C-alpha cells in the first residue's frame, strides 16, 4: 500500500493499492487520476453521489471467518430500468474485488478478464444464448446500456464523467457472469452472492 499527498491540497491519502487509478481526495474533493505514474488533480470531473446507501466508502468490517474488509470506492450506474452500485473493496488477504449491490442483494465479482467477441453483441437478445469462444456459453438475462452517474473514493478505473457502458448479464450452470462490452471486446467477470449481513461493520 502506498501513501500520497494530494497534488491539489497536500492532504495525506493513505492505503493506496497498486490497482488504484483514480481517487477522490477526501480533503479537497479533487479528482485525482494516475497519469504516467504521476497523480494529477483534475478539475471539472466530479460526479457527486446523491444516493445514500447502507455501505459507505471507508467502512470496515470483519466476517465470521476472520476476513477483514474495507470499502475503498464506489461507482454508481444508471440504466433504463433503475440503478445499482459497485463497491471496490479490499480484504485482509490482500485481495481486491468489486461488490455489486442490486436491490440490496450483493454479488462479489472476480476481476475481469479481457475476451474477444467476434461480431460483437448486436445479435444477442435477452433469453437467448451467447457463446463465448474463450469462455462459457451464457443464457442472457439482462442486456442494457448504463451510464456511470457517480463515483467516490479510490477506484481501479478512471471513469470519465457520464461514461456509458454496455453490459450483459448471463448464467451458465448456475454461475453468474457479467460482461462489459466495448465493440468486439469485453471484460468478463464471474459473480457470486456475498453475505454482507454476516459481516460486523465498524460504526463509520
Amino acid at each position, binding site marked *: 500500500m502506498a501513501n500520497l499527498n494530494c497534488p491539489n491540497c497536500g492532504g495525506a491519502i493513505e492505503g493506496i493499492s497498486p490497482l488504484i487509478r483514480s481517487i477522490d481526495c477526501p480533503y479537497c474533493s479533487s479528482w485525482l487520476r494516475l497519469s504516467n505514474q504521476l497523480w494529477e488533480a483534475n478539475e471539472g470531473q466530479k460526479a457527486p453521489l446523491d444516493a445514500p446507501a447502507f455501505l459507505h466508502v471507508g467502512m470496515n468490517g470483519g466476517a465470521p471467518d476472520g476476513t477483514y474488509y474495507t470499502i475503498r470506492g464506489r461507482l454508481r450506474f444508471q440504466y433504463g430500468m433503475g*440503478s445499482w452500485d459497485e463497491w471496490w473493496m479490499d480484504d485482509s488477504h490482500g485481495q481486491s474485488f468489486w461488490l455489486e449491490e*442490486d436491490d*440490496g442483494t450483493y454479488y462479489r465479482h472476480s476481476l475481469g478478464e479481457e475476451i474477444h467477441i467476434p461480431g460483437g453483441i448486436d445479435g444477442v437478445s435477452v433469453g437467448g444464448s451467447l457463446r463465448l469462444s474463450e469462455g462459457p456459453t451464457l443464457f442472457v438475462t439482462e442486456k442494457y446500456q448504463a451510464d456511470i452517474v457517480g463515483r467516490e473514493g479510490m477506484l481501479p478505473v478512471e471513469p470519465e464523467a457520464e461514461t456509458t457502458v454496455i453490459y450483459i448479464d448471463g448464467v451458465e450452470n448456475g454461475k453468474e457472469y457479467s460482461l462489459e462490452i466495448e465493440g468486439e471486446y469485453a471484460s468478463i467477470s464471474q459473480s457470486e452472492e456475498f453475505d454482507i449481513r454476516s459481516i460486523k461493520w465498524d460504526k463509520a
Partner: protein
Amino acid sequence: MKAFEPIKVHNCKNCGHPMRQFNPDTQMMVCESCGTRFGESVPPKYKPEAPLNPLFKLHELFEKNGVTWQIIGCQSYAGSVEEWDSEDKAWERTPWSFHTWWIINEAREIAWISQDKTGYSWSHKKTVTSGIPAGDRSYEVGSWTMISAVGEFSYIPREAEQVRSYEKDGRSLSILLDENGGNQEIEAFHDVNLDLMDLLTSFGKQSIVDGLKRAKVAMYAAFASIAALVIGFFVMQGFEKTLITTPTVTVNSQSLKKVIPLGEFKMENKGLIELDFLANLGGGNGSFDAEVVVSDSDKTPVAELPLSLWRESGRDSDGPWTESQYRDAPRINLPAADVYTLSLVPDSLKQWRSISLRGKVTRNVVSLLPIIIGGVVALLLGLFLSVRRRKYVRRETGVGL
C-alpha cells in the same frame, strides 16, 4: 420496533402528500394518497391503490428472524396461470391475481411478500439456473399485467407492464417483457410459503396468535376425545365379566309355555347385566317369542324380559329382500347380591319347526350408545371450532388456512 428514518421526503406535486423514500435505489415513487407518480403533477385517470390487507399496510414494520423489515411498496398483478392437465392432455388456464409487497430491512436488502388468495410467500432473488422452460409441462406458467403500483420501487414500472413467470418447487423465473412483447429482463426468485401464525407474530399480533392457539388446542382436544371414547370403550369391555354361558337349547312346538331352566349365576353386588341370546334360526320365514325369567334365591321372579327372534323376506321393486333378528340382548338392573336362576319360557313359534339358541349373562357391560353420542358431540364441537378458527384467520390475515 423503531421506525426507519426515511432517507428523503418528496412532496407529491399533485396533492402535497409527503412521499417518504426508504430505499436508496428507488427509481419510482407513486403517491399513496392520490396515485400521482413522482415527477408528475397530474394524477392518473385510475388511482392506483394498495390493496386492503387486514394484516399490514404500507410502511408498516415487522420483525422476522430478528431482522426488522418495512413495507415500502405494493404492485398488483392480474392474469392467469396455466398448468398442464395430464388427464386432458392440455394446458388448463385459471384466472388468478396476486400482490407483491416490496419490503426493505436496515441493511437496505430488498425482499418481497407475495400474497394471493391461498396465502403469503416470501421471495428473494436467486441466481438464474436455467433457460426459459417454455413448453415444459412441469411448470406453472403465469401471464400477468400490472394493474396497480403504489409506494416506491427500485425500477421504473411501466403502466400495465407485462410479466411472464415459470414456477416450480418454490422457484420462479420472472421475465419482464418490453413494449413489443420481447424479453427485457430475466430474474429468478426463491419463494418460501409463510406460516400465517409466524406472520401474525411478525406483525405483533400476539393476542390473535394466542387466541388461535387456544382454539387449536380445544379443536384437537375435541378430536382427541373421540379417540379417547373409542379407546375407553374397548378398555371398559376388558372389565366385562361373563357370569354364565347357557347350554344350547332347542325349542319346538312341544316346548311352548314350558319353563326351560338355563342355569344359575351369582351376583356379588347389585348391578346391570346383559342377557345376550344368539339363535340358529330355522329355514325360511318365521318368528319366535319368549320370556327370559330371572328369579332370585327365593324363587321369586325379579325380571321377565321379552325375547323376540324372527326372519322376514319378500320381494319389492328393488328385488328380493330379507330381514332378520337372530340376536337379542336385553338388559336389566339386578337389585341385590344374590344367586339368581335363569329360565326361558317360550310363548310362540311360528312357521319354524324348531329353533336352537344359546346365551350368556354378562355384567359390567359397556353401553355403546353414550360412546356414539359423545363421539358425535365431540366431532361436531371439533368441526365447529375448526370452522370458527378458519374464519378468524381469514378475517385477520386476508387468506384462509
